[in-house]
């Protein structure tokens, strides 16, 4: 009887630990999303830059430098710095 109780206890603990870890991961994921959403000016899109450069080389697109930008400050780039 005691052996059975210990067996169930260990199983419960492991199960509860699994639930807690899952909840923590979900919370971190949601928190990161909220942090990014709250940080103004974070918008960008990941693109296939190699494909883009091939089209630039072929003349389909331009590499003309744009106006109206600056190197991002560490604060703007989320602490990573330019």
């Amino acid at each position, binding site marked *: 009887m005691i052996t059975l109780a210990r067996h169930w206890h260990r199983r419960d603990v492991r199960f509860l630990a699994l639930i807690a870890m899952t909840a923590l991961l979900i919370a971190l994921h949601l928190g990161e999303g909220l942090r990014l959403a709250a940080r*103004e*000016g*974070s*918008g*960008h*899109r*990941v*693109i*296939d*830059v190699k*494909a*883009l*450069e091939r*089209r*630039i080389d072929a*003349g*389909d*697109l*331009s*590499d*003309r*430098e*744009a*106006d*109206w*930008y*600056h*190197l*991002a*400050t560490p604060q*703007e*780039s*989320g602490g*990573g710095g*330019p």
Partner: protein
Amino acid sequence: MSAVACELCPRACVIPEGAAGDCRVRVNIGGKLRATTYGRPSAIHIDPMEKKPLYHFHPGTQVFSLGTAGCNLHCLNCQNWQLSQRGGDEIEEVYPAEPAEVVAAAQGERCRGVAYTYSDPVVFYEYVEDTATLARAAGLANVFVTAAYINREPLRRLCRVLDAAHGDLKAFDDGFYRRVSGATLRPVLDALVTFREEGVWIEIINLVIPTLNDDLAMIRRMARWIVAELGADTPLHFSRFQPQYRMRNLPPTPVETLRRARAEALDAGLRYVYVGNVQGDVGSSTYCPRDGTLLIGRSGFTITDYKLTAEGRCPTCNDKIPGVWL
């Protein structure tokens, strides 16, 4: 890795190396921001000025119209989404045309001007500025068809070479902008005021979408704001929604809704209010606000009647009608 911060529009994108801004076409390559669609339009047409729509600006003339891929708004009802919601690298059809070539082509086609349109020309700002500078020197007018989601400083510089703007005021409701277009209202209002301050002729369009922005009280608030900030002589166009792109669940706008919106805006003090996308509607013609004389009759994009004097006056009462006439 050098991230750059774009200063062009209120999104203020911070773009890591090898990524694009939210507009998809301004790309950070090697720590420098590149305007990848400069000189690379994906749509070129010769349109009547009425199609922009501009009703008080060189009516009945043709305008050389071009647009590139990309947009800084993401409207669920976008009618040009195949162009606007793609990056330059995702579009096969590209027609290389440097600014001088655009101006030469516009002149060759006997167009009155060049229109920067289809997608939002904010995202191909440098191309607009260079082309417009050459076009103005050649005696052509420059027309900017935009949702006006642009910062004030770059807009002020661009206004030096613009003659007319067609500003899309999607709703007088910030929640609508956030839900439907992924943007905000305040910067749009600021940009519209900037056009007026800089002396650019401006007309406003409002696409009326059933249940989303057809509330007459909101339309009245919008009309009052236009009267107060842009002037009672600013033309306002109410346009008919057609289900498309990601908003196919709503019906086309009933014509009666557009007529009620027009009546509300006229009652709020605007003097030139139009109904668009409705063939032959009485609300698509221009009337003298003083005596009701039909000044310019329209059916679709065609002018059916033109009674303004050479000085742009009503032939009955001689009142000056605001606009840039022939």
